[in-house]
């Protein structure tokens, strides 16, 4: 298992006052994304706990793309991953952001 932490500053889409949401399942090739509001001075923090060790650079790229799309502010995202591919990770992250900000499930 490997733990990775990312922090993206100066977001715009405010998570304050939203309900925490969880999407996905901790299952082979899949991941669980927990998204919740957190007082982070306008930043978005993402904690990744993954069973696939050594993919730091790919996580950094996928998460930077995600933050560019959503520009989240005061949001904490926690991930339990069991070797999901980058495409699956991106889809789950979008699903998580959508379900919290737009209330879709």
């Amino acid at each position, binding site marked *: *298992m490997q733990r990775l932490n990312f922090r993206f500053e100066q977001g715009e889409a405010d998570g304050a006052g939203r309900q925490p949401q969880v999407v996905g399942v*901790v299952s082979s090739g899949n991941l669980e994304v927990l998204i919740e509001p957190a007082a982070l001075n306008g930043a978005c923090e993402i904690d990744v706990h993954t069973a696939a060790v050594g993919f730091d650079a790919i996580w950094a790229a996928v998460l930077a793309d995600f933050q560019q799309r959503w520009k989240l502010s005061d949001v904490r995202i926690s991930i*339990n991953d069991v070797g999901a591919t980058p495409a699956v990770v991106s889809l789950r992250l979008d699903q998580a952001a959508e379900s919290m900000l737009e209330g879709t499930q």
Partner: protein
Amino acid sequence: MSSYMESNARERLRHLLDTGTLHEFLPPAKRIVSPHLEQLDTPVAFDDGVVTASGLLQGRPVLAAAQEGGFIGGAVGEVHGAKLVGLLRRAIAERPAAVLLLLDTGGVRLHEANAGLIAVSEVMRSVLAARNAGVPVLALIGGANGCFGGMGIVACCANAVIMSEEGRLGLSGPEVIETAHGVEEYDARDRALVWRTSGGKHRTLTGDSRRLVADTVEAFRQAAAEEMAACGHAALSLEELEQENRMLAQRLDATEGCRDPQDIWLGLGVADPSAVPMLDAEAFQRMAAQLRTKEDAGA
């Protein structure tokens, strides 16, 4: 109409209960995860693979739990089991109309060894305690893992079991039987055989499952509401247990020498056992209900 089998635990529960009434206990944001899996350096889930909640079912208050089959095969660890036990104990205090257990599991989580085994036995005890307090417990089985091991016993402790054709119920899973008795006795890769011996249709014909429903969350929802109303609030009685014991002894006698479940179905009065696997849920349920009426009249 969403497939029950293809839905995950949260989706099943959300669509089973009346819209917007689900209130989750110990939600993922609380991060009550398994301490054992962390020690083993294995992925954890924020809900330890089970969603426990209160809500309404067709306007009546219920407590409900849904196991996530995708997470370690829905296996029961210490936290997972404690959440189920907590829900059932809450039922004794709150007296809801029923407790619904959406089971999708291979049984105990072997990573957690004795803690997992104790958890499963505590769930059994809690199911019986809830029933003894007059709270009906219903087991719904329609996930890809079926319901096996200690949780198979838990399902049989419930007032009623509701299954889809895709659901399976048993004690030892197919691979375990093959390993113990040899491939000639039981071929775990023969899917038709596996479903004939543990699938929803067989379990419904033998009476282990109260009824068979189509593989949609809506069908399970409707059946759960009807069974909940039919159960009433009678506490467990010794007489009821003795009657069940007699039924099981009779079944053992009646199925002596049967080589295949189709022989058992023939013995139960099914006119054409080979046609059973192809029947849709509605046609099958009609046939099973007729057989039961006939049996009741004979008894």
